[in-house]
């Protein structure tokens, strides 16, 4: 019984990790990463590591995706303007080495 649980959890981890890499859109990726965090927490519980499972749940499925989403939001907010005004590569780049 435990063995079946462990194998299932392991396969889920492998699957969701692969999905997290394969999904190229950062917003979707952060959702998949949240799922990966939950699945990892389940795996750790089955592996009798409740301490790690708790922190993985807090960090991996809440904090990290939240940070990723906030970053996406910041970057997108810039991107909208850049797409509209062509300000993508504005004059504040560092150096004279651009081609």
């Amino acid at each position, binding site marked *: 019984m435990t063995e079946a649980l462990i194998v299932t959890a392991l396969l889920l981890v492998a699957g969701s990790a692969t999905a997290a890499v394969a999904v190229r859109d950062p917003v979707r990726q952060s959702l998949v990463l949240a799922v990966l965090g939950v699945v990892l927490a389940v795996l750790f519980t089955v592996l009798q590591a409740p301490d790690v499972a708790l922190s993985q749940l807090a960090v991996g499925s809440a904090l990290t995706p939240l940070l990723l989403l906030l970053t996406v939001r*910041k970057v997108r907010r810039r991107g909208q*303007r*850049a797409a509209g005004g062509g300000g993508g590569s504005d004059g504040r780049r560092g150096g004279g080495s651009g081609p």
Partner: protein
Amino acid sequence: MSPRMRLWLVATGGAGLAALLVAACLDLPRFGGDRHPYGDQAVEASLSRHTANTVASVTFDQRAFDTLGEMSILFAAVLGSVVLLRQTRDEHRARPEPAAVSRPVRRYALLVLPVALLTGLYVVAHGQVSPGGGFQGGVVAATALHLLYLGADYRALERVRPIAPYEAGDALAASAYLVTGLAALLAGSAFLANTLLPYGTFNTLASAGTVPLLNAAIGMEVACAVVVLLAGFLDQAVEIVDEGEHDDGEYHDDPRQRGK
């Protein structure tokens, strides 16, 4: 390098590494094996110090020096992201408009907030007897504060969360951990030795000597650190506006739609 070339490189290197790792996996002791010399001794050492949660004993007593390093990493990351996400000279702040929150959401958030905060504190306080401790409780408590953002709005969050005290709290918690360690040294024992307090009664809150103290210090450090980290990112995402962005004041996109 062209993407094609890079792919070849990744394939070659990845295949080599994969072969190495698979060969190593086949040589590993089988999964679930019975030989854990260090672990068994750690359990004994934990029981000898009246610590019911062995993991807490390893983290805050036997290998407390690792935890010092880990705490410093967190401390450094907080300091680093404060520096990296600072408002630069070419940026200004735009006050976000207050957004209307539907009543059920508000009620839910304000109801859950104290519960979550208490849960966090409980988890911190019981680190030495049950799973959990400073890290887990700290993150929960810090995240709980951000329910305010969901339930009220960003301004309400900013009122209960002036950043400066949290930054100071982060640093003071780190100092508290260090001072506990130094106190043991001054008392004639080794740095971070768990010899200052009686080991107490097994499986009660007052057990395990200095473990609860270090646990509390970590809990405070983590909670403050997470608050400051999230604040830095929220600031960037919601308030700070640079030249490349919408700054005409018409931007009322509710961050919650994406932030949650």
